[in-house]
């Protein structure tokens, strides 16, 4: 890529980010724009800076890059859309917490920790694509192992599982 083209390529990347319905990986952008991943990252940085503090910003989320509105402006979006606030139940969040930190984990292990049956909650999490089957445990009965999904990361605005703080850290902070 010649440096002369960077403005046009930057516009192309911005355009892609604008029309995409999901976070775009650096590799995907590189493939479409035919420039190196390294250059994509540089241009993403410039685009991010350009939109900083405006109506929508470029954020790294779920292993990709996506244009998102700023949380402070949610009130305006709600006036336009009145979106549904289908937040997760306490039971679902507790179960999800176990999956996130103990994955891969079986249903029995989750039930052991929470001290209750989790049938309904687990199917909710599966339906909402926050949790998925990731394999089978090599113990008698070969129980299904569960893990979190990319949607899980997006839903909570995380880029990777490493961004989750340790329970000890959280406990100390609260």
């Amino acid at each position, binding site marked *: 890529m010649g440096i002369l083209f960077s403005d046009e390529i930057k516009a192309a990347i911005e355009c892609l980010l*604008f*029309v*995409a*319905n999901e976070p775009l990986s650096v590799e995907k952008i590189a493939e479409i724009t035919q420039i190196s991943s390294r250059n994509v990252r540089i241009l993403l940085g410039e685009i991010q800076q350009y939109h900083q503090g405006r109506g*929508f910003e470029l954020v790294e989320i779920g292993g990709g890059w*996506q*244009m*998102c*509105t*700023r*949380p*402070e402006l*949610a009130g305006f*979006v709600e006036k336009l859309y009145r*979106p549904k*606030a289908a*937040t*997760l139940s*306490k*039971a679902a*969040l*507790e179960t*999800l*917490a*176990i999956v*996130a*930190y103990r994955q891969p984990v079986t249903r029995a292990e989750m039930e052991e*920790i*929470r*001290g*209750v*049956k989790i049938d309904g909650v687990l199917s909710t999490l599966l339906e909402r694509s926050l949790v998925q089957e990731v394999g089978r445990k090599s113990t008698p009965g070969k129980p299904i192992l569960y893990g979190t999904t990319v949607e899980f990361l997006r*839903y*909570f*605005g*995380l880029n990777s599982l490493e961004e*989750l*703080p340790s*329970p*000890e850290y*959280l*406990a100390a902070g*609260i």
Partner: protein
Amino acid sequence: MEYQVKLEVFEGPFDLLFHLIEKNEVDIYDIPIAEITRQYLEYIETMQVLDLELASEFLVMAATLLSIKARMLLPKEPKLSGGESPDEGADPRDELVERLLEYKKYKTVAEYLGDLEAKQGRVFSRPNDAENFFNLFDDINPLEGLTVLDLVKALQEVWSKSKEQGEKFQEIPREEITIKEKMDEISSMLNRRSRGISFHDLFAHQAGRTEIVVQFLALLELVRLQAVIVRQTVVGGEIMIYRREENKAAN
């Protein structure tokens, strides 16, 4: 007089226990088991009085608490001279505390995730309608890579999912069917068959859900009018429908 019952809903026995420990401001490593057990049982009792659904796990935990309480009341076993009991110093509460702490870990994380969820719920991405873009391109084949066989497979799947198999490929003049017509139809069928007709056969050739329902309502109406007799001679056996006169003659 006006009074209010405020009853928190707990996600499980651990959740309830935690609430009690926090409410009483007691040390989790030194739970006053008698008092906590009393409050725990009180809560369960309230739930039962109010006829609220109570997961069996709550009762299991109640039993566990009572057992711990009982063990705490037992006098310490006298030390055997010379040897030390491997159980010495073991607190009956230890296992419970361990499980509570493990649970607490995830409860904390759950609260954190709840905060993240609330924050992320205020962030919106652009809801692009992909269909809008597809129309921009020429010569897109939306069935690329698919064959007629895939279409057939899709249909088979719909078919197997649909409860009324085999009915879907005939025209169904649903709107025209009336109970009266069906009653007449059943009556004339029974007139032709002196030995009656089985319930199964009566519904075998109905085209759809609506028609089956109408047929059934028609049959009920005929029963009510005592125009037909419905009999089942063996439990679980075939149900037979007879015209009333025929039935009388048969007996």
